[in-house]
């Protein structure tokens, strides 16, 4: 069992497509939970990326604007802040996900194995259902996450 892998799902269950990462957490095969810690973090904070043992792998999952609805992308977590303007997280928070990652990186908290996995969203309204494109893209998101778990 490799519990040095953490899957951190961000977003809001009430925000239409912004719930995609949280839903993906529920759809992961049970075997993944034996290999990784599944965490419903909703709003990523820098401190959540600090303090893990060296060699830990963190997979941060969120719904983003800036790529096609339902399209799945992944990239080194360290590259997220620079791309944030293009891959906009749907939720507005005190510190955006990119700022939180940048701050954690500045404090030495991001490793080469950490990755960001995003799914493009189209509908982020409070109480809205997920868009058909994101519903259709969820299996791909789940597969991408599973494939990145060591």
């Amino acid at each position, binding site marked *: 069992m490799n519990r040095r892998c953490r899957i951190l799902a961000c977003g809001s269950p009430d925000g239409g497509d912004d719930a995609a990462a949280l839903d993906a957490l529920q759809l992961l095969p049970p075997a993944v939970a034996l290999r990784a810690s599944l965490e419903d973090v909703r709003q990523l904070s820098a401190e959540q990326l600090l303090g893990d043992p060296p060699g830990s792998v963190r997979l941060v999952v969120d719904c983003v604007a800036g790529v096609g609805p339902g399209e799945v992308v992944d990239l080194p977590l360290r590259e997220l802040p620079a791309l944030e303007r293009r891959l906009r997280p749907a939720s507005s*928070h005190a510190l955006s996900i990119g700022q939180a990652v940048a701050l954690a990186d500045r404090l030495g908290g991001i490793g080469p194995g950490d990755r960001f996995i995003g799914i493009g969203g189209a509908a982020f309204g409070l109480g809205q259902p997920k868009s058909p494109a994101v519903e259709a893209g969820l299996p791909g998101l789940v597969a991408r996450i599973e494939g990145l778990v060591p």
Partner: protein
Amino acid sequence: MTSQAPERQDLDFEVGQLTRVEGEGSLHLSVDAAGSVRAQLRIFEAPRYFEQLVVGRTPDEVLDIVARICGICPVAYQMSGVHAFESLFGVEVDPGVRLLRRLFYCGEWIESHALHIFLLHAPDFLGYPSALEMAADHREVVERGLRMKKLGNRIVAMVGGRAIHPVSVRVGGFSRVPRVEELDELREPLREALADAEATVALVAGLDTPVADREPRLVSLRHPDEYPMNDGRIVSSDGIDLAPGEWRDAFHEVQVPWSHALQARAEDGVPYLLGPTARVVLAADQLHPRARAALDATGLTPDDLRRNVFRSIVSRAVELVHALAEASEIVAGYQRPARPAEPWQPREGVAAWATEAPRGLLFHRYELDAEGHIRSAQIVPPTSQNQAAIEHDLELFAPSVLDRSHEEATLRFEQLIRSYDPCISCATHFLDLTVDRDR
């Protein structure tokens, strides 16, 4: 030879977009030729209709729904709601549950205050555009803040089931209460964080602070035996004294054309200030001795904090000490309640209560039918109530920076707005300011 003073000109300051915030807003500030200043905090985020979303729901459903209003202070929304319902239904909770609710609130104050002090407000004073840049030169300070924030979130998760939008609050108590061994894990982190918080009071009291002077009307809860969180009477610095469900007897909401958020006023129309400074002043005698000692060691008095809006960062740090000290004592003396929640029966009537969110008094009022379903709801957040005070303070302060560069004026206006820790501008370090000077 004679010299002439330059002719005064009309000035318009537009801060077009408060970005990276829990909400969307802007600032418009105008100065006419006679020197009269008018500030408008324009909140243009679309209404979220939570007061309508809860109509037809049961009290326990309401507690889950209102937690979604804010990711930073969900506990406050649950606490105002649950106390309102319990007041109507005549529920007396177990003393252990009452203490757990204070611990729950302490957790929220710790994470919210640490976020604001270290990541959002300190960069203004230390001359950085954000905590990211500040971390390069003040790594230990940022790490200290993140440690405290993480601990606050851990407390909320331990009591509430999760850190963001907790799920365990129920009318009568909790759906589950933590075991003694679970809370014991907090003892050492709390001890360490308390020392960090005391150092923080000294740090922020020593920051170079803009000069500002005003005499705001202060409003908060006040309790004879404890620092105000869940219980007490609504009091003001000029004599208001109401039960926690009677907010509407002295205050009312008004709509202004430039904001999607309702503002609130006292009956005489005068703005009032909520939040850490109001509490520190109005309940100074109930501060934990370590919090009071930390403040006294700075040489500042509660009145110093009241008069200068920029000193709110000190009030917030003092409350950080209070929350950590009180949390430590609750954890040390914790005995698991025999049962997590008391039974209750719904009844028709009005359920109303106010508690102290990190940013100030949060009032809830619900009308219920005989089955306990919500007929109507009114939720008055602290940021809504503070809007008028923010505008008033901007108008008082603006003349002192009008002769400065756009960049510096921007920083000072933002710094002042952030002094209130408004939910709509939790991270207003990224403003674009345009200035039109009519000639």
